């Protein structure tokens, strides 16, 4: 009988197998939709219940993490590679987010995907994702984490390209997969380095090893390891320069965007860094890099989000930006705060994505903000929940986003581990833009007059109860989630950095400033988009140049295409394909064959049919043999 932790991980796998075999083409669609949804939602919920019970066990014995060895993978020398599950407070928070938010998104999908022909495949993939994500979160060893890490990448690829008959979707899936490979190379190198230096990949042991030796762990620099692992994290968590895949990943069904590309998978990088905080505490250079990359990503993505017209693209860039915030928190040593933001972000961003899904559902697939407007009265539940989540991400107190974002801003300003007013300034500007673009999104979709075509307008309808109930639940969590004191809960595990004494006086003013910024951003957007359209047009003309750059996403895709993709294609084509493959390998084989043919043709001439010629050859052979044996007598 496997233990609780093993069951938590295995239940979604069971769901994947059941649905994957019975409810797809593979098994001939043997079961009905009711079975699919019961299995698809029931097993994640069961997992969630088990996480709760494990959480109860953890709380009853404070300080002692739960540990379960499920399987011994390999025994090499003295080091055993085990599939072991490790459950401490950090795992608990992550597992609760993954199974909790994951389960409600599964339930939402029942309504959203009701009319899709391959709903069985969809739920199978979702459960597969959940399995790998739980493996990632619960794994004790970096190796198990890596298996989960790759697995969620696979599930993400499958789900982005879920509607693969559209080539663009399949291409977006490939892009996500390949971009992640680049990061994974760094991750693997970091893992090799750690194993060579410490002889173990168990993350609790790695942390302990670095703590004991005070940063001078045997023969390995914490910063080098930190940077390498962070490269992996930039891939999975869409940070500069590997952020390009996430906006394209919106090609998948909206529940997928909510679950994988907002709430859970993309936060895996944040989890990795927080989990290895023992390493990063001694890696000041790596931390500085993380903070810089985080804040740059946050700022950059927010500027792009200002002008996007696709409702999901805005949310995608917003996700990239929020992930940047999390990495900023990690970079200044506030690991618990980053996890706090992971949680609140999971609530409000899932709510936003699912709300967007509800809008898209209502409009029969329309995603362009320019063809929406005035939806507030038509789909009121979606509107209210969306508005709550918007306020939460904008940082309006007392909603969830306010607390986590404010703590990040505070530590970016005052942390003794790399905080600086400059970081705060950029982050605060980003917060202002966040409030602006989210309000813009809300306004364009729900307020003002309708810009829908008549036939779309005619069929607008509120989503079914299974979807709106989930929206309401997530909106509720976005409201009260900020009162769950995650950083305090994790403090024993992930101590918060000390703040600089002389800056303490700024704490309250900064709080006020961040609230003012949030309100100002929202008000500016409301003023701009709610008022005279001429104002907007004038502004657009005035800043035509910058607008073009933002709308083109700084043309980074085009840059990568020119600088990386084309040379790569050229090298593959000219060097690897034409030179190596065709000329060298094919040429060598063809050459051998031609040689054989030529020799054969030449020798065939000897068989003339003239018996005398044969007899002559026999004579030559005899004389030769005689001479040879006489020479070597």
């Amino acid at each position: 009988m496997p233990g609780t932790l093993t069951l938590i991980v295995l239940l979604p796998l069971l769901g994947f197998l059941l649905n994957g075999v019975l409810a797809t083409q593979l098994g001939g669609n043997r079961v009905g939709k009711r079975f699919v949804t019961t299995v698809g939602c029931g097993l994640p919920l069961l997992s969630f219940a088990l996480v709760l019970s494990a959480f109860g066990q953890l709380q009853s014995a404070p300080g002692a993490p739960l540990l379960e060895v499920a399987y011994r993978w390999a025994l090499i020398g003295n080091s055993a590679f085990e599939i072991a599950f490790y459950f401490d407070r950090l795992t608990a928070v992550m597992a609760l987010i993954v199974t909790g938010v994951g389960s409600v998104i599964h339930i939402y999908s029942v309504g959203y995907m009701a009319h899709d022909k391959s709903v069985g495949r969809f739920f199978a993939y979702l459960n597969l994702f959940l399995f790998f994500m739980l493996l990632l979160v619960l794994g004790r060893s970096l190796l198990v984490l890596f298996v989960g890490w790759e697995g969620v990448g696979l599930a993400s690829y499958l789900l982005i390209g879920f509607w693969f008959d559209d080539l663009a979707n399949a291409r977006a899936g490939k892009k996500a997969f390949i971009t992640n490979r680049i990061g994974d190379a760094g991750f693997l190198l970091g893992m090799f380095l750690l194993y060579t230096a410490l002889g173990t990949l168990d993350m609790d042991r790695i942390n302990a090893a670095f703590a004991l030796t005070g940063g001078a762990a045997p023969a390995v620099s914490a910063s080098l390891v930190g940077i390498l692992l962070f490269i992996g994290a930039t891939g999975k968590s869409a940070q500069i320069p590997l952020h390009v895949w996430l906006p394209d990943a919106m090609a998948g069904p909206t529940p997928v965007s909510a679950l994988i590309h907002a709430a859970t998978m993309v936060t895996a990088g944040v989890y990795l860094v927080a989990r290895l905080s023992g390493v990063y505490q001694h890696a000041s250079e790596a931390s500085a890099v993380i903070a810089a990359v985080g804040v740059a990503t946050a700022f950059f993505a927010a500027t792009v989000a200002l002008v996007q017209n696709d409702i999901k693209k805005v949310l995608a860039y917003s996700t990239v930006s929020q992930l940047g915030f999390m990495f900023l928190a990690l970079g200044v040593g506030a690991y618990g705060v980053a996890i706090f933001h992971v949680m609140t972000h999971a609530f409000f961003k899932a709510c936003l994505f699912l709300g967007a899904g509800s809008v898209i559902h209502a409009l029969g697939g329309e995603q362009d903000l320019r063809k929406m407007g005035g939806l507030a009265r038509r789909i009121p539940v979606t509107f209210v929940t969306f508005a709550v989540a918007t306020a939460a991400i904008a940082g309006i107190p007392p909603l969830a986003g306010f607390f986590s974002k404010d703590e990040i801003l505070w530590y970016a300003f005052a942390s003794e581990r790399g905080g600086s007013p400059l970081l705060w300034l950029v982050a605060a500007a980003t917060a202002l833009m966040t409030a602006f673009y989210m309000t813009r999104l809300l306004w364009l979709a729900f307020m003002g007059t309708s810009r829908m075509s008549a036939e779309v307008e005619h069929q607008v309808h509120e989503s079914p109860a299974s979807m709106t109930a989930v929206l309401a639940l997530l909106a509720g969590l976005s409201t009260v989630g900020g009162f769950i004191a995650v950083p305090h809960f994790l403090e024993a595990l992930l101590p918060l950095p000390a703040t600089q004494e002389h800056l303490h006086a700024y704490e309250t003013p900064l709080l006020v400033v961040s609230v003012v910024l949030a309100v100002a951003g929202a008000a500016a957007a409301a003023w701009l988009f709610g008022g005279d359209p001429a104002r907007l047009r004038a502004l657009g003309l005035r800043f035509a140049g910058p607008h073009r750059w933002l709308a083109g996403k700084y043309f980074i895709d085009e840059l990568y295409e020119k600088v990386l993709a084309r040379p790569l294609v050229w090298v593959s084509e000219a060097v690897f394909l034409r030179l190596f493959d065709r000329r060298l390998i094919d040429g060598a084989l063809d050459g051998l064959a031609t040689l054989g043919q030529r020799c054969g043709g030449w020798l065939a001439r000897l068989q003339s049919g003239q018996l005398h010629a044969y007899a002559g050859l026999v004579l030559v052979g005899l004389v030769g043999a005689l001479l040879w044996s006489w020479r070597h007598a």
Partner: protein
Amino acid sequence: MDKTSLLLGLAIALFVLGLLGVIVRRNVLVMLMCMELMLNGVNLSLVTFSQQSGDTAGAVLVFLVFVVATVEIALAIPIVLLLVRDKRTLDLAAYGDLKG
């Protein structure tokens, strides 16, 4: 020159005569006879060595060669006759198309 080398010289002479005959002559029947000549050269050397070493195995082998040579000729002559009936010539050059 003692008797053994004389006999061996004769054997080599027979063999070389036969071989040259096979190579030089074009008449099929003559070639067959030359082949018999080679076999006899070999037989003579076998008998000589057998005498010299006092072992009868060589002499016995000669009987084996006789039998095989008889059988071979018994097969070869009818084949030659059939061929000649077809092409009306004993010249081997005419049969080059038998190479297949």
